[in-house]
């Protein structure tokens, strides 16, 4: 038996190494001008065993740092490690200029983890927030993200989007052979990557159902593109389209009933709607130009899409009630692949300027377009469900990586994969807990 364990050990290490390589790293490149200093004290472990299986405070610290809006203080600078209110000496925290103090306790029984957290305003010397999150120990990281969400909301007034997930496509190049495409699901910080589909043929355009329980994507696994949907909890998978020509850009409607997509079965690429219960198709654009990249307005009453009907790609809006199409973007020669924030006001898109492709945000109320990124090959923007950050794909040092920028352009970070290229990020909606 002992020999068997020893024989298995290298195998296990190999598996772990594989996981680690698929994981995304995080490099913060720009933070907010005036981040809020916060002390996230290591949470006291009250369960069985020597320590908590995950360092909850470290995950919260990393979430808050990545948001760019917080400047967590170094653990080594902390003059105490309180886990209860009676142990807090506010002068210790004023001394290291922390505006806020987060403490907590972690316990676990029969695989169920319980995290209690308390947030204190150091200046006012008052408890301003507190709560308990519980769930399976295997979801410890997600529970920590929920603590981050609560802290973020209390301090910024905006709901956090840490307890969310990402879909992306990882590509490994094989010299002289076809690439490996891996549709990957991870936590919002890139941790815990899971490969949902691996193929030697392209996989692209991953997207979420509005409740976060299902995904859609395009796979070329049959030698031709087709749209698939997959249930994340059951793994059940269904091929939705198999038309001649393009089968692409699936976009789930906010009410979950309809999938917008681009098909070219009738000649040129046009936008179609598929009723997901009857599979009935309705063609909504009829133009000899390229119409593609549909995306829903949050109210579900209209869609934005990319069209080159004016000569160059620009964003247009299709009104589902009137069937009318109006042009939305006028600035620049190339605006494409829009995604709309939940407020229905900020639209992120790919904007070309001086031959370079950047991520820009268009305010639909003021019609002001602001370029957010300065790299040359930025694409596939995806907006966090709280509207704060935009995740996108770019090229850095010759490799495809994911990067993020805040909607105001101030905060930037990169999420390079440890090997290969990553692309096509899709930020999940809020997940039901």
């Amino acid at each position, binding site marked *: 038996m002992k020999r068997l364990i020893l024989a298995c050990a290298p195998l296990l290490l190999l598996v772990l190494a594989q996981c680690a390589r698929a994981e995304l790293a995080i490099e913060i490149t720009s933070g907010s001008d005036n981040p809020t200093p916060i002390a996230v004290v290591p949470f006291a472990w009250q369960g069985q065993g020597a320590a908590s299986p995950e360092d909850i405070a470290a995950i919260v610290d990393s979430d808050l740092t990545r948001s760019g809006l917080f400047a967590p203080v170094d653990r080594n600078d902390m003059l105490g490690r309180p886990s209860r209110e009676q142990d807090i000496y506010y002068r210790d925290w004023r001394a290291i200029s922390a505006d806020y103090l987060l403490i907590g306790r972690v316990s676990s029984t029969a695989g169920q983890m319980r995290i209690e957290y308390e947030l204190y305003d150091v200046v006012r010397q008052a408890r301003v927030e507190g709560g308990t999150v519980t769930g399976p120990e295997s979801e410890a990281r997600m529970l920590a993200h929920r603590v981050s969400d609560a802290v973020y909301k209390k301090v910024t007034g905006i709901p956090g989007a840490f307890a969310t997930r990402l879909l992306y496509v990882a590509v490994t190049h094989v010299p002289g052979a076809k690439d490996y495409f891996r549709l990957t699901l991870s936590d919002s910080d890139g941790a815990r990557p899971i490969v949902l589909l691996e193929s030697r043929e392209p996989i692209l*355009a991953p997207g979420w159902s509005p409740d976060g329980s299902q995904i859609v994507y395009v796979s070329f696994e049959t030698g031709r593109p087709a749209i698939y949907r997959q249930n994340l909890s059951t793994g059940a998978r269904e091929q939705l389209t198999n038309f001649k020509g393009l089968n692409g850009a699936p976009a789930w409607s906010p009410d979950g009933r309809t999938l917008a997509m681009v098909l070219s079965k009738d000649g040129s690429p046009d936008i179609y709607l598929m009723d997901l219960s009857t599979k009935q198709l309705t063609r909504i654009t009829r133009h000899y130009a390229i119409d*593609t*990249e549909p995306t829903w307005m949050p109210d579900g009453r209209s869609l934005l899409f990319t069209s080159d009907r004016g000569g160059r790609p620009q964003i247009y809006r299709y009104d589902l009630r009137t069937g009318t199409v109006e042009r939305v973007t006028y600035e620049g020669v190339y605006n494409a692949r829009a995604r709309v924030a939940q407020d229905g006001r900020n639209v992120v898109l790919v904007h070309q300027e001086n031959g370079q492709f950047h991520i820009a945000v268009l305010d639909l109320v003021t019609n002001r377009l602001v370029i957010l990124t300065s790299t*040359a090959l930025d*694409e596939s923007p995806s907006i966090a469900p709280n509207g704060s950050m935009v995740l996108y794909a770019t090229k850095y040092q010759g490799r495809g990586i994911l990067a993020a920028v805040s909607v105001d352009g101030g905060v930037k970070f990169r999420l390079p994969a440890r090997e290969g290229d990553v692309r096509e990020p899709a930020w999940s909606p809020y997940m039901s807990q």
Partner: protein
Amino acid sequence: MKYLSVAGKAVIVLFTAALLAACSSSAKKDDADAAAAAAAAKAEQERAAAAAAAQTELRRKMDAAAAYGNVFYFDFDSYNLKPEAIESLNAHIAYLKDTDEPIRLEGHTDERGTREYNMALGERRANAVRDYMVLNGIPSYRIETVSYGEERPIATGSGEANWSQNRRVELK
């Protein structure tokens, strides 16, 4: 032999004569058959020669097409066939018209621009090649077009030297 009677000899003579007569008439028939066979052989030879010539001609067309390669290149954000692509396509069409092979056209783009827009652009490129083939006598039912957009680059680097290799339609 010495035991044979005269009658017996006569029978043998008669039989021999009959046999000879039979031989002479079958010789005449053989001549006719030989002529027909020769004609058939000649026709067969001619047919084989024609087939061989056709085969040689097909081979020549195939080699001529192959000399151009099976990739047609495009300008940035364009799906117009360039003169060199048309020259190459003409050679391929000359060969393909003499065959009934199924044809697969794969459209590709460079990495610039969004992936789904590039998917549409790749399809337009494949369609431009298909339309030119159909216009020049290849039945459309033989042609399948698939766009890979920017998903399958030949050259993975950035810059025009790489991009120009990736804006293409491949004939499979």
